[in-house]
């Protein structure tokens, strides 16, 4: 039997259509997906760029373990998760998850659980780069600051 799961932690744009193909099957009736996209603001500061860093082999190991647990908890056919690393332009997806199942409830619930779990335990870090305008005298210089984020849960 083919591996029902697909995981990747990699640079470059992510595609929902390609991910859906990884989980699609002639027996599945439903595919649910989730994409996390980068936002352009944080506490009033404008986010100009994001950078993700991962402990790649451990992150992929944890993602594979999440896929396996999803298939133990729900009657789903296949699970696929990709996380982007490196620079991610604002508005683009940093993570995409797809789950296929015969009935829609399972895929939708599973995808929700998977993203919660990913945020809780997969060793990946996001750094936000902010543009802060500092008006001093006539000169309007723009200073870039940054912060490593922490997931709330």
């Amino acid at each position, binding site marked *: 039997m083919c591996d029902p799961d697909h995981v990747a932690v990699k640079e470059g744009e992510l595609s929902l259509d390609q991910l859906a193909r990884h989980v699609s099957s002639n027996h599945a009736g439903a595919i649910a997906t989730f994409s996390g996209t980068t936002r352009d603001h944080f506490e009033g500061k404008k986010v100009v760029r994001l950078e*993700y860093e991962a*402990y790649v*082999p*451990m992150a992929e190991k944890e993602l594979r373990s999440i896929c396996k647990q999803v298939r133990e908890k729900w009657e789903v056919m296949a699970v696929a998760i990709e996380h982007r690393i490196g620079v991610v332009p604002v508005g683009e997806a940093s*993570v995409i998850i797809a789950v296929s199942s015969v009935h829609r409830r399972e895929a939708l619930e599973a995808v929700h659980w998977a*993203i919660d779990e990913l*945020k809780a335990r997969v060793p990946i*870090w996001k750094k936000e780069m902010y543009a802060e305008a500092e008006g001093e005298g006539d000169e309007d210089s723009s200073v870039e600051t940054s912060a*490593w984020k*922490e997931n709330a849960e």
Partner: protein
Amino acid sequence: MIRLRLLFFARSRELAGCKETELEVPAGSDSSVLSTAIVAAFPALRELLGHSVISVNQEYVGKPVLLHNNDEIAVIPPISGG
């Protein structure tokens, strides 16, 4: 002594000033000695280690595990994937 690979990521990488180094601990040590050994070698990490976890061979460890030569240790600051 046994020799471990020690990896840093994100804020811990910035504070340590490198991505990877080596760490020596006495033979027979288990993972409970790691935090102290890391702070001794990298004092700048003291505060961050208080809210980081330390992985052994790409696994989160619950109970202390015995360390072996060439084990891969990593300092995992609060994560923010997703």
